[in-house]
């Protein structure tokens, strides 16, 4: 993995993600309470916590899948609190999904192609793309990046679960992402597939920062340099992976709490 200093230098100044006093209520239920969180460009951060801690809600507030009840969300300095998801995508924000939302009846290549085409011009083109086309080139680069060359022409519905997760990452990398939100990318993966996932995440280009939400501490702590712990909709601890692992309060609440 490249060092954090190199990556920040590559990505510019300011914060990539800046949440100020973000709360989200579902009726009377408070899923997120007054969360303030900053992530620098190129920084790789894990958000950990037990079920119901508010991790996925936090992610949805950043992507705009549902807006916060109060507070502001900034993306590279720009206030995006009220922007719809596709506008945030055009600004370089990407996410992956926990449940499979892939195009099951299309090939792996076509899935990635659609993602690349979605953030470029010519979405309505009736003319086929040539093999030498820039988009076709980035499709084959992405296939290699997520180790799916060998199954490029298989239908997604026929892929193993682990390969579908890898494809999910490729879709998030399409276009020119600046920041990615990974929603439990290791869920349901075998130990060897987890190894592949760690390899893919650590090999991402230096300027791309991410937030990873994960139940599996082993995966999460190997691919990040900072950790945010959440509990009951609030942030209660931030620090480097080794600090979090060693923290007695964290061990009490999370590791020893019967959730891990």
């Amino acid at each position, binding site marked *: 993995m490249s060092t954090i200093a190199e990556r920040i230098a590559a990505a510019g100044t300011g914060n990539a993600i800046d949440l100020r006093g973000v709360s989200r209520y579902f009726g009377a239920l408070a899923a997120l309470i007054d969360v303030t969180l900053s992530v620098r460009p190129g920084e790789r951060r894990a958000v950990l916590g037990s079920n119901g801690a508010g991790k996925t809600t936090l992610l949805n507030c950043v992507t705009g899948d549902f807006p916060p009840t109060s507070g502001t969300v900034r993306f590279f300095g720009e206030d995006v609190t009220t922007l719809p998801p596709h506008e945030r995508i055009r600004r370089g924000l990407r996410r992956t999904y926990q449940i499979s939302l*892939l*195009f099951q*009846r*299309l090939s792996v290549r*076509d899935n990635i192609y*659609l993602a690349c085409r979605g953030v470029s011009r010519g979405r309505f083109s009736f003319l*086929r793309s040539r093999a030498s086309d820039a988009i076709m080139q980035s499709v084959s680069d992405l296939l290699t990046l997520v180790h799916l060359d060998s199954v490029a022409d298989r239908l997604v519905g026929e892929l193993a679960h682990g390969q579908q997760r890898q494809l999910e990452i490729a*879709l998030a990398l399409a276009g020119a992402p600046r920041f990615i939100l990974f929603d439990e990318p290791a869920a349901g993966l075998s130990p060897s597939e987890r190894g592949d996932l760690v390899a893919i995440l650590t090999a991402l280009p230096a300027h791309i920062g991410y937030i990873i939400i994960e139940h599996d501490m082993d995966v999460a702590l190997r691919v990040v340099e900072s950790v945010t712990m959440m509990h009951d909709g609030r942030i209660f601890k931030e620090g480097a992976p080794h600090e979090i692992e060693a923290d007695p309060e964290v061990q009490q609440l999370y590791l020893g709490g019967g959730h891990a």
Partner: protein
Amino acid sequence: MAITQATDAPIGMDEAQRNAAAWLSNYSAILLLGLVLLFLPAIANNFFLDQIVGWALILGMIALSLMFLAGYGGMVSLAQMTVAGIAGYMIAVFGASSLPAISLFWPWWVAVPIAILIAGAFGTLAGALSARTEGIYTIMITLALASAFFYLALQNWPIFNGFNGFTTIPAPHFLGVNWRSPVPFYYLVLFFAVLSYFVVLYVSRAPFGLALQGVRDNPRRMEAIGYNVTAHRIAAYAFAALIAAIGGILLVWQNNQISPFSVGVDVVINLLVIAVVGGLSHPIGPFIGAIIYVILRTFALDALVAVGLDGRRFQTLIGLGFLVIVLFSPDGVIGIWRHWSSRIRARGARSGF
């Protein structure tokens, strides 16, 4: 798994020869079919040329517009026969018919573009109305549009001439050819059917067609990766309407007449049956469905009488035939064909051939 044909070719062939051999064996069926269609007028009589193959190609085109929407877009539109019907009516209104009180008698090269434009606008509007719906609701909205047009045509006399409709609608004469005489008309129909088939096949792999298939598989994700799903659906309706409109014009020239019963709900349902029986997963499906439909429609009555049954039961026979096909293969004839060809290939692979 598919066996690559190239590896079966005899050793000693160079790359180009192997490619040519692979191409030939992959496309031999379509090549043979193309040759038969091209030289059909030399071997078939006019009845077969016009009333069987010609009619099937026209119905296949209109069903192709439904297949494009349903197969690639997941939108089962029952308004495609209505789009074709509107194009046919407009040909009678703007061109010539036996009704000088209504028809404007403009030349065909004015009437045809106007007819396509109006039918296309209707098809696009149908898309705009149903693009935000899915599944059964799309079917209901488009069915409502189809039956609304049927009743409009039935009850409106100033433009649609009520239930009488129009007769004596001539096909054009140009380049010194009467395009309604059987052989020229067959080639005219064949040209547009083959053209629309290949255009649909081509577009299915172009960005627009791929995005449409993405919308079919997962509209929410398509929004999430930057597509305007509603706009894509409406554009698909517009494209499909173009094909249906051309089919509708050819149909009115072939029948020489059009009436509300050309666009009735039973006809609308027949078109859906044609597309589903042929198969919705490939543009050849609607043409297969159409030829089966036309053959049953033409010969079922005689066949029943020949075995001593009541000829009026021919609809039952057609219905049973379709039931059997759909029951055994959800993807129609294409599904059956794929199933058998993969079994034959698997057997060939086992015996090392």
